[in-house]
């Protein structure tokens, strides 16, 4: 019963996001649309919830149901509807690969009911959700930077704890398994976005391979069910890069808005998300300015994450909750030594079997890129992670060993999207721009690829 209530809570969260995006005319159908809806719902929940905590008020589900009602009325007046149209595979091999992805997800989903939360999942994120559930807010005793709960990094943004609180609140219990379950839901959104974004560009089989590989990629899967925020950053990165690409190719006027939504989700989930928002803002605004688009409306989506996280980070700074991520007192020779160590650690990792193919794919993708914007965002994000390792005040080796695999794992879906769409566009130049002729060509190639049997309708 608890799981049914939690699933219903997730549906409501999706609905709030879908209604909000429909209201501003930025909704997109299909798998990527569902993920964007969920991201928007989470961003709204995180913003309103964070403001409530900052104000010392109790977080309640009622304002969100009120908001949903208002948005539903607005959508009903405009009648855009809330269509979800799925792009089902026509190719048997693609269908099999998607079945593998689905079965893997289902097994992880069932397994997470046994509480698969891992270290940071229960130490940081699920603990805050539990406190929110029991207290209705994060009380001063919990937020004391020198207090008994300082280990839970009270200054971290609240998107993930608030989503878990949302589930706990609807289920009526602070059951850790729900936080674990929620992680698998975030993971499930990744293949939805990848399949939707790649299917028309690369063909069904390649898109399905990417989707199956992403779901089963252990650094993503174990941390998703482990309840950490890395899978949320992975979704934010993939969604932002995909929508930025779509927006810059002028294929969809709502793409920049959804890009801003994904960036807001990332920024309100984890500090790495804020770095991602910064990288995307520099690249996105730079691209728009080069195209002569300097209106506030065009730039606003890139400012959205910073506007939404401002109350929380302002509050955290005023309370002294901020964590020192970089040390300014490192000697130049130490920095040089650390740079070599980081390069060595990343290099060793790149030669391991699960990572080496990704490095090769990235190389091919960069070589055949059609747009540099997405690569700059991903590269900026990874470069910022590397800088944080080099300048960390903590034990750098320990930090790399315990976090690099999950932080870099979060970059994998975006890397796959950029690499594969670049390769597809190189062999079919129209695919990158998303024009109709190239899409129909691509559909044709999908049918030819391995004797695809089109649906006999």
């Amino acid at each position, binding site marked *: 019963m608890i799981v049914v209530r939690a699933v219903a809570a997730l549906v409501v969260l999706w609905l709030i996001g879908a209604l909000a995006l429909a209201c501003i005319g930025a909704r997109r159908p299909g798998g990527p649309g569902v993920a964007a809806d969920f991201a928007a719902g989470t961003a709204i929940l995180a913003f309103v919830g964070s403001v409530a905590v900052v104000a010392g008020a109790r977080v309640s589900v009622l304002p969100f149901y009120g908001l949903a009602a208002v948005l539903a009325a607005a959508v009903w007046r405009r009648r855009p509807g809330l269509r979800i149209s799925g792009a089902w595979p026509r190719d048997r091999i693609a269908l099999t*690969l998607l079945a*593998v992805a689905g079965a*893997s997800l289902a*097994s*992880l989903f*069932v*397994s997470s009911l*046994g*509480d*698969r*939360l*891992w*270290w940071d*999942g*229960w*130490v940081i994120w*699920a*603990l805050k959700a*539990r*406190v929110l559930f*029991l*207290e209705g807010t994060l009380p001063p005793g919990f937020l004391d930077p020198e207090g*008994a*709960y300082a*280990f*839970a990094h009270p200054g971290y943004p609240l998107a993930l704890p608030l989503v878990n609180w949302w589930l706990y609140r609807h289920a009526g219990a602070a059951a*850790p398994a729900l936080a*674990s379950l929620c992680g698998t839901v975030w993971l499930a959104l990744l293949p939805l976005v990848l399949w939707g974004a790649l299917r028309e560009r690369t063909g069904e*089989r*390649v898109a399905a*391979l*990417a989707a*199956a*590989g*992403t779901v*089963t*990629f*252990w650094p993503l*899967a*174990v941390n998703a069910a*482990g*309840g950490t925020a890395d899978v949320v950053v992975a979704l934010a990165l993939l969604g932002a890069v995909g929508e930025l690409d779509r927006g810059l190719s002028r294929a969809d006027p709502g793409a920049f808005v959804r890009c801003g939504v994904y960036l807001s989700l990332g920024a309100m989930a984890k500090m790495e998300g804020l770095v991602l928002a910064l990288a995307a803002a520099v690249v996105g605004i730079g691209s728009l300015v080069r195209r002569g688009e300097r209106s506030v409306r065009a730039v606003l989506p890139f400012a959205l994450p910073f506007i939404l996280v401002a109350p929380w980070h302002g509050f955290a700074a005023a309370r002294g909750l901020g964590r020192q991520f970089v040390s300014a007192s490192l000697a130049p020779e130490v920095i040089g030594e650390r740079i070599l160590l980081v390069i060595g650690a990343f290099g060793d990792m790149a030669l391991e*079997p*699960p990572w080496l*193919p*990704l490095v*090769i*794919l990235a190389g*091919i*993708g960069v*070589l*055949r890129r059609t747009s540099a914007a997405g690569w700059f965002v991903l590269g900026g994000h990874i470069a910022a992670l590397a800088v944080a390792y080099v300048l960390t005040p903590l034990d750098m080796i320990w930090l790399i060993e315990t976090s690099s695999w999950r932080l870099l794992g979060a970059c994998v879906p975006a890397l*796959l999207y950029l*690499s*594969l769409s670049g*390769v*597809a566009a*190189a*062999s079919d130049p129209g695919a990158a721009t998303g024009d109709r002729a190239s899409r129909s060509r691509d559909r044709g190639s999908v049918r030819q690829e391995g004797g695809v049997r089109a649906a006999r309708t």
Partner: protein
Amino acid sequence: MVRGNGLSADREARGLRMLAVIVLTCWCAVSVEWFARSMRGPAGFVVRRPPGTEGVVGMPLIGASEVTITRRLLPPGPDGDRWLLVLPAGSDPFVLAYIRYQLAHVEYPRRIEVRAGPLPPSLDGYAGIIAAPDLVLDRSWRPTSAEGGFVRYERGEP
């Protein structure tokens, strides 16, 4: 000449696409194998929690039995009470941190401080103490229950 260059570029693009598909297939196979192998492990499809480790949150289970025993020994009481758990001297700091974080999570809002022996100089402010058996408390603390080698002490004459 132009036609020749175009064909060569086209061939190169197709070759790279083929290479990308092969690499992607290999990566997908490695991912699926890694996933299947991991899901067969002890923290795999079925999260196995040995008897005596109930009541902890998530994984790993490095100090789970101590957490479980402590929770069993804790009496129901006001949320504001502070308790002290004293583990044997020389306990692994990592396990100490694990137990402290676990108890902070599962017992919230009750505060349980965790340290390795010996006892701190002052025990003022604690509603009770749960201590490893080799630790001896003065007569102002009386043992009230024991389990798994740990003893619960509360204030008062024996």
